[in-house]
């Protein structure tokens, strides 16, 4: 390690070789004259005589070579190459679109092929690997994504009008905003409510062993019910409540819609939340608590100044898990008319329109990754004595 020369980075090497293979052999892009007719697919080599594709393959091979006997300088160079590749992908797609879509095809749709998806995925993995190897901070990692974001933004606003995904979005942009908002509201409400409830429950569990046993029993049971079944189970009682109690029906409580979705999400969120809060509070080093008491801190001082701050990173970990889980589960809630991004997924599946499925799925993945990164870095920051 000292002289800067390290052992072969097999992760990076295999990522890059797979990237080259996928890029040169799989379908990169497809063009259809309209939404109904299946399109024809092209590999990257078949677009523009193939030379831009080969040009893009070169830096991938270069990174693979650098990974063979990596030095710190070499890895930095590899990082630059990966960031550049990620930025160039949308531009390549724009160029391919310009070439493949002729002016007499106003309804033409360009689909993103498996080669491009795979390349995007492999390059992002390579970016993570390089960030770890070079010991760059999390914020730095996010900064590295900026050029790629700029590339996509530029391509989407200027040149990628025929992109099927964009067309699906443009056809229902209002719907999309509503769905996104509904998704966020459902997740936020479920996580927020479960945080409050779980805190109370965890505090009660610390006081009484009976509540602890019963509580975990019930929550574990809830967690084992499949989500669709739970939605179904909630249907009857909520419909009954909605029909009997006026003010409940006035705010929209019925067998389907947001009410059962919210309750089910809340139920699923409680277990990870309660478990993390409980474990976090219990696992504070007993010696620290004992010395806090021995020094003459009273009960509330011990809890507020010692136990809680030491438990907070683990609690945040619970919020992170719960949020990511809720973002995924809310997609299913679309099936009972709760709205959210899942609507596009199920509609798209019904119409066999893969691009519409993607319109729902991609933002869900993005949201989950963002929530994960946000709470992950917050929890890291709050680790005791960790703030430099």
């Amino acid at each position, binding site marked *: 390690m000292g002289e800067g020369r390290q052992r072969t980075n097999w992760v990076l090497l295999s990522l890059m070789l797979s990237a080259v293979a996928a890029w040169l052999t799989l379908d990169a892009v497809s063009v259809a004259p309209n939404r109904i007719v299946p399109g024809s697919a092209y590999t990257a080599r078949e677009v523009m005589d193939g030379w831009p594709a080969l040009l893009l393959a070169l830096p991938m091979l270069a990174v693979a070579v650098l990974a063979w006997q990596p030095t710190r300088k070499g890895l930095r160079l590899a990082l630059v190459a990966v960031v550049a590749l990620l930025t160039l992908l949308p531009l390549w797609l724009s160029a391919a679109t310009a070439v493949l879509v002729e002016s007499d095809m106003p309804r033409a749709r360009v689909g993103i092929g498996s080669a491009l998806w795979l390349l995007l995925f492999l390059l992002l993995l390579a970016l993570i690997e390089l960030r770890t190897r070079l010991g760059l901070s999390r914020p730095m990692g996010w900064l590295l994504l900026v050029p790629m974001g700029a590339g996509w933004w530029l391509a989407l606003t200027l040149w990628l009008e025929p992109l099927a995904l964009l067309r699906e979005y443009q056809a229902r942009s209002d719907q999309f905003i509503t769905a996104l908002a509904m998704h966020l509201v459902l997740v936020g409400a479920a996580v927020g409510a479960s945080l409050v409830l779980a805190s109370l429950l965890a505090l009660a569990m610390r006081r009484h062993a009976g509540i602890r046993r019963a509580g975990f029993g019930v929550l574990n049971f809830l967690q084992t019910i499949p989500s669709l079944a739970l939605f179904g189970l909630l249907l009857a009682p909520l419909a009954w409540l909605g029909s009997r109690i006026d003010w409940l029906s006035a705010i929209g409580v019925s067998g389907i819609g947001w009410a059962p979705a919210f309750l089910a999400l809340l139920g699923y969120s409680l277990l990870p939340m309660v478990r993390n809060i409980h474990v976090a509070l219990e696992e504070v*080093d007993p*010696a620290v608590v*004992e010395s806090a008491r*021995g020094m*003459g801190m*009273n009960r509330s001082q011990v809890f507020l100044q*010692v136990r809680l701050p*030491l438990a907070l990173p683990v609690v945040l970990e619970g919020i992170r898990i719960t949020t990511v889980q809720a973002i995924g589960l809310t997609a299913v809630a679309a099936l009972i008319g709760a709205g959210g991004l899942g609507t596009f997924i199920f509609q798209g599946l019904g119409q066999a329109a893969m691009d519409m499925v993607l319109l729902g799925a991609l933002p869900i993945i993005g949201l989950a990754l963002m929530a994960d990164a946000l709470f992950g870095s917050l929890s890291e920051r709050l680790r005791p*004595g960790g703030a430099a």
Partner: protein
Amino acid sequence: MIELFDVTKRFGNDTAVDGISLRIEKGELCALVGTSGCGKSTTLRMINRLIEHDGGEIHLDGQPVRNFDEVTLRRRIGYVIQSTGLFPHWTVARNIGLVPRLLKWPKGRVRERVEELMQLLGLPVAEFADKYPRQLSGGQAQRVGVARALAADPDILLMDEPFGALDPITRETLQHEMRELQARLHKTIVFVTHDMDEALALADRLVVMHQGRVVQQGRPIELLHDPVNPFVESLLGGMDRGLKEAALIRVSERMLPLGPRLLASERIAYGASLSQALSVMLWHQVDRLTVVDEEDIPIGELSLRRLLGAKAS
């Protein structure tokens, strides 16, 4: 002054402490020793009421501890434990200032006191004040633990195996510093340990506990000479008791002024113990040592006869 009258503690059916009576004078360092589970830690923690006693009475300066509010009581008593119990999310300075802040001292006075204590314990303020506990070595962390316990200048210090988790060299350094600190501060200290050498080196008074009872108490030398039963004898080292006693006596107490004879070739510091002197003699196979002061200047001599004679006195 701490007094225990017939104090008892039961955990369920187990009697952890069985009617013990003790009197620890002001300014005295009293070591509680015994095998694990003998009730020494329990006894210690009943004094600051981390554990409440079931029977008997515990008095501080003539007042039953039950008359104090437990939080007020603990703020008046310094407490040091083996694992330090430092708050990992607080800096060294904040950890040390804990009790003064609980007592609502003005900010400036807390800061002054923290810096004073850090100097007292050999922790340079500029280097350590803003460090977190996980950035400290075991010895440094325990120094911070002692500083924290001394922060509000309590008369009484309770120490539960404070040096038990340290490596032997650090432990010896800290024991030495502890002795010097006590010589200056004259706190009333109750010190729990299972390390007999540590107890012998530090204690003014030794209390041997076994199965929740006090088996014997007295000055270390008294216990070494007259153990009441085989248990105390073996706890104190059995056949090694001679060496343990020799470790308590300084060379300076037994040396003779320089005589007309030639200086012996092997030297020993006047502050060393008789056991160290004996070891040097054994190693070099000589029966006479030159005693030197800090500057390595000969000030006397110690013969094997004198060394052995010490035993008879």
